[in-house]
């Protein structure tokens, strides 16, 4: 696939998804009962669908001028961080405990995106110190200052 057609295909997919959501919202708004509760959603969803379909057809015809899409290089950079963030939020935070999961996610993300060379012991020590400071600040701020009770589960 040529590089110029990639953003166009991406625009079609993105605007297609938005249009699909718009149609779904309109469908629910016009079919669900009681109708009084869906009066305002009907109004919005009508405008939503019109604008979303307009955007979709513009993308299909290649008229979209705004938005650069996502390049493969950017996607490759983004993906590991995104996966770690999602695992942290949707599983680890509750399963391991907020602070443990937060510290592990912080350390992994820091190591993953830190430009410093991975082979040097000093780099790892520095990362561990930064993570410890981060953990101490977050614990002090949320557990001690704001008294927020977070899920502790296996660890803390």
């Amino acid at each position, binding site marked *: 696939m040529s590089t110029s057609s990639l953003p166009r295909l991406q625009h079609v997919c993105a605007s297609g998804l938005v249009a699909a959501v718009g149609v779904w919202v309109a469908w629910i708004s016009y079919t669900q009962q*009681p109708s009084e509760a869906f009066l305002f959603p009907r109004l919005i969803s009508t405008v939503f669908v019109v604008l979303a379909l307009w955007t979709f057809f513009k993308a299909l015809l290649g008229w979209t001028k705004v938005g650069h899409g996502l390049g493969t290089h950017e996607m490759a*950079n983004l993906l590991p961080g995104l996966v770690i963030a999602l695992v*942290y939020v949707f599983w680890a935070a509750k399963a391991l405990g907020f602070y443990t999961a937060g510290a592990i996610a912080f350390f992994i993300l820091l190591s993953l*995106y830190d430009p410093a060379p991975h082979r040097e012991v000093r780099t790892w020590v520095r990362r561990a110190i930064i993570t410890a400071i981060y953990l101490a600040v977050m614990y002090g701020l949320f557990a001690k200052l704001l008294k927020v009770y977070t899920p502790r589960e296996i660890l803390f």
Partner: protein
Amino acid sequence: MSIGYERRDIDLEFLYYFGDVFSPVSFGLLLLGTIGGLLLGATPGLSPTMAVALLIPFTFHLQPVQGLILLGAAYTSTVAGGAVSAILLKIPGAPANIATTLDGHTMAKQGKGARALQLSFLASAVGGVIGVLLLIFLTPVLSQWALAFGPSHLFWLAILGVTVIGSLDSASVVKGLLSGCIGLWLATIGFDDIMGAQRFIFHPALGGGINIIAALIGLFAIPQVLTMFAKGRTSSAAEVIEVEKHSIKDAIRELVRRPRALTIGTVTGSFIGLIPGVGGQIAGLVAYDQTKKFSPEREKFGKGHSEGVIAAEAANNAMVGPSLVPLLTLSIPGSPTAAVLLGGLLIHGIFPGTDLFDNHPDVAWTFINSMLIGQVLMCIFGLYVAGLAARIAQVPQSVMAAVVLGLAVFGSYSVQSSMGDVYVMVTLGVIMYFLERFGFSAAPLVLGLILGPIAEANFIQGSMIAGATDGLGAYFLTGTLNIVLIAVVIASILYSVWMELRTRRYISKEEIMG
């Protein structure tokens, strides 16, 4: 102090609440917000909107007025703090500081970095104070005027808030308006207020609707985190220019010698701030351009001319106060950061407009007064923390991204101790990141989400009145004020479409010319 106060003169009402700013907690928060805001503002990638959004969970645990003081101070000083990295690193801390980079960084390279910083903070303070004074004197008048508004007018005002930001704040008018529609739809998720019917609850986490704070954090912070991830293992390539010693008295004398730049910057910023949806970036660039046009030394602009720094910084801080006028009177935020502030008001059950000034004058005036004092503090501390702020601006993006992600997760959880809010925050943030890559923007979506309940409540109330009187069409589409508001909605959209077409034609011409 406000105790025992009797209303004597509405124009000077703010003076009665001046002392409240100096209570230990309030003043401490003002200092914290100012210094923290200066440091955050200097950090490229952390926008003022995101900084204020991340602070909202902390305000939830404070008194409403204390929370607003913290948010207001952070808003003011992040805009000014962005000048530090613009001058010393050539990286604008926020879009509002783009114009400052043009002459500020050149001055720094010429060994005049301290002078540029001093002038930027002094000009910011002058512009900011005048902007807040405008807020003080315009707000009560407009809020009294808002008393005449009925449900149909309030409905159109809410729609106006969404369409103005949707069309003016986005690169594509259609995508901006579509973002606003998505926000309005998201606001309807949950149980309907009147019938108690379930609407769009496709996951148990959405049972109580979408929590505004979680949504604000997700929509503004998570896309920034993912943007930093997408850049990969990048080091902070920018080099900090060392600051020399420079007398503050000389900087004050220079500011006084440049009244044209200061006046144009302040007037332009104040005027642009009043127009909902037009941000500090525009204010700074327009003021810079106008000052250059009126200057006899226009050839010096871009080569380290102090007038460029003065005009840009006076403008971007002068717009802060006026951008809150439509917010505090009509619930229409003048900028994305003002939209986040609106969220900060609503979580404490305080509604802008007459409710705010009649039922919570202590909150309204103490907050506004704190912004006035905050300008002075920002000027004093800005000069001292500039060096430190520039060093913080060099913190690697890997650390920044991980810290912001952690703050977003802990912050959104802390509001209601609900994992559902964290899931909503991350889901919205990730979707927003991808939508932004395709030209959608977060500001109108947030506006839709915040103004949606106001629009719906007034639409339903209006429909009931219309059912008993002239019918829906006559109630919502006739009457002078309705027609004026509809005309403004249409005019803002048409103007934005015209601007978009003009910009495209200009870009095409540039491409043809090579």
